[in-house]
């Protein structure tokens, strides 16, 4: 970890001082030890604020949209999942890759403070380090050795791309990391197996928890429209009223809007303060696309267009009934 931080600082310092970039986006320490926040650096003095630890979970790629309005060339640290988002931003013409230098950071998996807190490990946390599959944690009570997987974010447990899929420079050789939850359509299957009444109850209950904070939309590298219908009440498409139908409307439209483009980074479910199973909507669409249109590769190949902006004459047609009437 320390090694990585010095590499990060070195490369940021070099590129800023040689004017290769005029802005660097990376992680800095938050108020608590279990917090890492995005930081934006233009001054060489601030380079020292860069950190890399087990809480650098934020997907930084989306900040490029705004930052590129004010800066010519940006250096950014991206993990595997972030790099998928970056590719999709490029594909959606939101970011010009020529203006970005991606420092690829292989990721071993991030630690979920909520999971630590459930085991009462968060309060007196002093220090935390990962050694392969082990988590060394120092609290007031002393040092403890834990199994890292027990405390990783759910999205990290399912991660398929711990290594950046696109980068200008790779800061470390790739990590070898297997996702342990391999069959992750299992959760979707479980919902599909219910009958329609049960499904409706399930989702209504989920959606009605929503406080419409739009955190899920704001973090998403794919939800990148400049003007969102959910911010633009005057056009009369969306309402802010706290009724079930508006929550349902928001969630269905959000999920459908990212259909075929969602890179399955899991950020939306992670940030939701109400723990709504947003990923199970996204994954349903991903499952359908995989089954009907072949392998799902959003975020992997920026030059190949998304499923919904494409078609084939011989596409599967679930609607065709007989030609002509009785």
């Amino acid at each position, binding site marked *: 970890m320390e090694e990585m931080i010095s590499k990060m600082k070195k490369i940021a310092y070099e590129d800023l001082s040689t004017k290769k970039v005029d802005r660097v986006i990376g992680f800095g320490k938050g108020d608590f030890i279990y917090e890492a926040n995005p930081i934006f650096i233009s001054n060489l003095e601030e380079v020292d604020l860069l950190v890399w630890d087990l809480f650098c979970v934020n997907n930084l790629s989306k900040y490029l949209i705004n930052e590129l309005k004010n800066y010519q060339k940006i250096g950014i640290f991206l993990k595997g999942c972030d790099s998928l988002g970056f590719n999709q931003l490029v594909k959606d013409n939101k970011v010009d890759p020529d203006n970005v230098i991606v420092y690829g950071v292989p990721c071993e998996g991030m630690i979920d403070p909520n999971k630590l807190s459930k085991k009462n490990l968060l309060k007196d946390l002093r220090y935390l380090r990962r050694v392969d599959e082990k988590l060394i944690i120092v609290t007031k009570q002393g040092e403890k050795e834990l199994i890292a997987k027990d405390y990783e974010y759910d999205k990290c447990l399912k991660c398929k791309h711990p290594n950046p899929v696109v980068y200008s420079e790779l800061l470390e050789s790739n990590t070898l990391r297997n996702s342990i939850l391999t069959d992750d359509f299992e959760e979707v299957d479980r*919902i*599909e197996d219910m009958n*329609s*009444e*049960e*499904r*409706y*109850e*399930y*989702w*209504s209950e989920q959606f009605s928890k929503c406080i419409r904070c739009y955190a899920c939309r704001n973090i998403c590298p794919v939800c990148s429209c400049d003007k969102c*219908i959910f911010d633009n009440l005057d056009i009369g*498409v969306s309402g802010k*009223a706290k*009724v*079930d*139908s*508006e929550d*349902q*409307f928001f969630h*269905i*439209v959000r*999920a*459908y809007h990212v*259909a*075929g483009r969602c890179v399955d980074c899991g950020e939306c479910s992670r940030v939701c303060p109400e723990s709504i199973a947003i990923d199970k*909507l996204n994954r*349903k*669409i991903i499952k*359908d*696309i995989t089954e*009907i*249109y072949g392998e799902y590769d959003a975020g992997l190949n920026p030059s190949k267009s998304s*499923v*919904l*902006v*494409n*078609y*084939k*004459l011989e*596409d*599967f*047609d*679930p*609607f*065709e*009934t*007989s*030609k*002509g*009437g*009785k």
Partner: protein
Amino acid sequence: MLLESKENLTIDKEEFKPLIVAFCCNWCSYAGADLAGTSRLNYPANIRIIKVPCSCRVNPNFVLRAFQNGADGVVIAGCHPGDCHYSTGNYFARRRLTLFTSLLNYIGIESERLKVDWISAAEANKFATVMNDVLEKVHKLGPNRKLRDVRWKR
């Protein structure tokens, strides 16, 4: 007072009449509906047709709003694949609606309530059959309550 109670009575007695919203593309399905009308084919009167330029114009928001504001069933009809007036519109629509109908189904809307079909300008018969079919199925399912906006009044 008297008037009110009378009204309530009639509503109670009234049999369930499903409300179906049909989005028909201007160039085929709407013309098909026209032909069905001029050929005096029977199709139910509780179908409200909304003319759209092309099946790909149907934004999923329209479907959701229809369900929220009173529809018991929604039909989207367009030209047969290959016949779209804008050449490719319904190919895109086909992919979108494949995913969208599946998503709605996943959320718990009965698949009978959302019907997509291709109806050409010459297929007046098919138009009538499809509409009758949807009506029958929706009638069997009963009034839709899912997705309904609580503020909506009939």
